């Protein structure tokens, strides 16, 4: 598989500077080589461990974090809201 770093970076919401494209391409190519030789295999994969199924908790209303706690790590806050750049010009 040939990897197009510019395309994958765009999908990943990463910008890779032009002078690093070649290095990333080389590194990614060696990683791709490691993962691409999968055997032909047929069947249906189940996403979960059928013998150890998940146990959901009861859907109950309980006290959770306060607004202050949740905003504590926001980069920019105003009037109890998170400030972000303009989306529509």
């Amino acid at each position, binding site marked *: *598989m040939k*990897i197009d*770093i510019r395309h*994958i*970076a765009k*999908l*990943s*919401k*990463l*910008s*890779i500077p032009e002078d690093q494209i070649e290095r*990333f391409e080389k*590194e*990614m190519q*060696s*990683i*791709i*080589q*490691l*993962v*691409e*030789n*999968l*055997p032909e*295999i*047929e*069947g249906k*994969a*189940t*996403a979960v*461990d059928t013998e*150890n199924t*998940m*146990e*959901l*908790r009861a859907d109950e209303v309980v006290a959770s*974090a306060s607004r202050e*706690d*949740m905003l*504590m*790590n*926001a*980069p*920019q806050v105003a009037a109890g809201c*998170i400030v*972000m*750049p*303009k*989306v529509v*010009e």
Partner: protein
Amino acid sequence: MDKLYSLSAKSMKELLDKKEVSSVEITKSVIERIEKTDKDVCAYNSYNFENALKNAAAIDEKRAKGETLGALAGIPLAVKDNIHVKGLKTTCSSRMLENFVAPFNATVTEKLNASDAIIVGKTTMDEFAMGSSGESSKLAVAKNPWDTSRIPGGSSSGSAVTVAASQVPFAMGTDTGGSIRMPAAYTGIVGLKPTYGTVSRYGIIPLASSFDQAGPMARNVDDLAMLFNAVCGRDKMDAVTKNYTFEGYGDSVKGMKIGVPKEYYGEGVQPAVKERVYAAIETLKCQGAEIIEISLPSTEYALAAYYIIQCAEAASNLGRYDGLRYGFRGSNTSNVEDLYLTTRSEGFGDEVKRRIMLGTCVLSSGYSDAYYKRAKLLQQNIAKEFTDAFKTCDVIITPSIALTAWKFGEKSGNPAEVYAADICTITLNIAGLPGMSVPCGFDSTNNMPVGFQVIGKKFRESDVLTVAKCYENAVGGFAVKEF
């Protein structure tokens, strides 16, 4: 009493129970030890000394009043920096979360608090737990106490180092593909990746959610068991956890069947490692275990399946770092798209970027059937092979890692070679099985520690620890680095 810091957790507990020492005395000794040695081994991203002393004093008071105390009462420990401890930073050793303060406790932390343990700090790690050397940390880069010019292994690098350098008796790590077992092997300590679903993931920053599992690291089996017992069990905040009770462990392997899979002793494994692991198997044989040759043929595809699934899940999990609600935010951006790009490109290191790109690639249109779907099918095959193997044996023994600790920078520029070093540990995360790294001597070429891995059936940590304990007794205990 000097050198309190160097005692095992079990000895600390005995002295505390007999009221021969106080938790404040032990905690002070541990803090002094960290202050004296951490500039050389760099195990921590942040310290919690003030709170630790306050908590130790509170526990001493409880003890004086005769109140009921938790199982780890007054014993200091460290927690990996991807596990939330309310009010302390959870950085994941990344610029992205460099200033992130945990707004709540992980369930593991709640359980440690309920056990009256004393958390003295947050240990460094590979950035977002991506790495097996410790080198990808963007904050403290931990060093191997056996030779500080060498890597300690990762991703739980700081937790391994703080234990190996006798700063604390035990520490919590997390393991997605070997991140507890590999650094344990590289630094000559014991480390357990429990069965998927025994320890809650709630409040632990995810790498690959279907593989992630937290677990204990210690200098001996008894201490490891003490810590594991305190943190395991059902948590309603993590739907995959089970009503699990640790059944304890014995010290005899008489009549136990140990499987030895030939695929784990191939050309990729260094001869010095093989020699030590075979010697450990021989020791267990002398203790009465029966050794059986087994085969796990899908192992050759495990690395591919692992990195496809892990990176796919990581790319999805790390999508949340957009610079809007928390974490690093790129500056001088003109619009929201630009903000995403700048934040992620400046906030993540190269290793994280590579894995996000690999994950995005294998999930992208036209590739997901060929890669992700096939990897999931292989995962089933690998798990089934283990189930079948366990019909003929009780535990399986392999090397923990194919090599011993290398020098810093020796493998930079070759990420694929570093990925390949994970081959012995990743299959357990793929199959959800418990595994433990146990020290078994030193590499004769560089004097660095070697570890073997004991793999058990699902939820049979008891078997795994029994083998480890029997070996520990047979060799008269594990070597501790005078540091």
